[in-house]
């Protein structure tokens, strides 16, 4: 009985792993294709399509745009989220629960609808499509997340530490920079990291709100219109590689922080 369960478990887990990794493996293998179609038979290995990606000015500038939008929008989202979390956790505000609900509300709305709303609003206001517009949208989707993560980590013992700091003569900004920020750093880091990944990967808001200068997912989407193409495999594999490195780095940093 025991052995049978072990055997079935191993088989089932192997099948799920295979399902999970199948598309990724196909993506990476056929990015090394030397001919023009990423379908069997495999004709590589060749780095031809990676060279093509690096030589494509539109893809490389989209990559730079994506990094810029991800960095700026997640910084703004984490900063606003942190300040709001601090305010709500430390002070009793009238209608606090309602206001907190308002800040977290965008979490329950599809990106498509948030993007549509901004498109309608910016259209009315006469604002042109731009990377800034997409960045504003990314803050809208990430702010509730940052707020929820940081707010959930603000416990009562931290209030006491802050009180002690004030009693010892620290000014409000000193409490913030020398006590609260260091204590809350893991939560802030986690929310920054998550925001960056979401912004980096976000498609539909950028698609709706940018025009010529756009982000990497939208540029990859444009590539897709030409059908199956090993160049798409190559750029996809590169994005995957970067994301995996980031995920591993995140895991290692979190693991190191565990004992604290």
């Amino acid at each position, binding site marked *: 009985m025991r052995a049978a*369960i072990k055997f079935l*478990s191993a088989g*089932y*887990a192997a099948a*799920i792993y295979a399902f*999970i990794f*199948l*598309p*990724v493996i*196909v*993506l990476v293998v056929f990015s090394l294709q030397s001919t023009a179609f990423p*379908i*069997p038979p495999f004709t590589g290995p060749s780095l031809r399509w990676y060279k093509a990606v690096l030589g494509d000015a539109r893809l490389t500038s989209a990559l730079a745009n994506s990094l810029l939008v991800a960095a700026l929008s997640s910084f703004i989202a984490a900063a*606003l989220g942190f*300040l*709001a979390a*601090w*305010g*709500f956790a*430390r*002070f009793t*505000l009238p209608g606090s629960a309602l*206001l907190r609900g*308002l*800040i977290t509300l*965008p979490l*329950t709305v*599809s*990106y*498509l*609808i*948030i993007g*549509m*709303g901004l*498109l*309608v*609003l910016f*259209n009315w206001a006469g604002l042109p499509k731009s990377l800034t517009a997409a960045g504003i949208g990314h803050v*809208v989707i990430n*702010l509730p997340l940052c*707020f929820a993560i940081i707010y*959930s*980590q603000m*416990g009562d013992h931290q209030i006491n530490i802050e009180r002690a700091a004030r009693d010892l003569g620290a000014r409000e900004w000193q409490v913030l920079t020398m006590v609260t920020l260091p204590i809350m750093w893991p939560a802030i880091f986690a929310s920054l990291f998550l925001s960056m990944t979401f912004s980096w*990967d976000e*498609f*539909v808001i950028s698609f*709706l709100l940018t025009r010529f200068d756009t982000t*990497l*997912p939208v540029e990859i989407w444009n590539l*897709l219109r030409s059908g*199956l193409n090993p160049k*798409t*495999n190559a*750029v*996809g594999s590169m*994005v*995957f590689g970067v*994301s*995996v490195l980031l995920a591993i780095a995140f895991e290692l940093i979190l693991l190191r922080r565990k004992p604290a």
Partner: protein
Amino acid sequence: MDRALPWALVGPALLWTVAFFVLPFLAMGLLSLTSQDGGGLTFANYAQFFTDPSYYRALTNSLEVTALVTVISILLAYPFAWILAEQVPERWQRLALLLAVLPFWTSYVVRSYSWLLVLAEQGVINDALTGVGLVAEPVQLANTRTATIIGFVHFFVMLLTLTIFASLKQLSPSYRKAAADLGASPLRVFVHVILPLTLPGIMVGAFLTFVLAIGDYITPQILGGNNELLMPQLIMMQIGRRGDFPLASALSLILMAVVTVAYIACARWLKIERA
């Protein structure tokens, strides 16, 4: 203490939410009551959605696909999460879990494209099937509802494995021991102890799956094609091809209402509270 300080702290986040979330909503609401052809306020866009089958079919398609995806993903992910939590030795669990969600980090667009490579007419699966001689002609897999569902399930199995694994790990082993000591068979322990205790985790995962799947444009557009439209595809089509913003706004709000109903149904599992 300065009275303005708390508002200075929470103000920026509130203002941002009002300006770029609430206001767009109101704008969409107002616009949805106008017509592209001008004229006064009208419910024509909503009427069109509820009377024209080619429109409301998109919503029923979306609901069917999302429900199927949610159920299949839970059924696949639960045993997998259980194996990771119970059968894999403790020191390997983190690695096993990290591996299981690694493709989660691929870009969304790229992930759907990868499945297209696998499912295409000359793709890997058809190549294998015809190579073995199982089928004579390639099977149509891409541009079908099945392809959309496969693409979705792939993503949500990973997400649900994470949430279910977390709730399984939070269970104290003493519950199971106590039930077993009182004479319950392994099956009864599972049905009466483990399953009810992990239900909140499942519900959170199911809700996330529902919300993310029903609002997604990429997966159905790349894998399902235009044979059968889902709600997000219908919305994008209004702005892309026809430039009909009022109708697109109305459709967005209808989709939003459906998600809100799901949210209310799951609300008791979804509380965000301070630790």
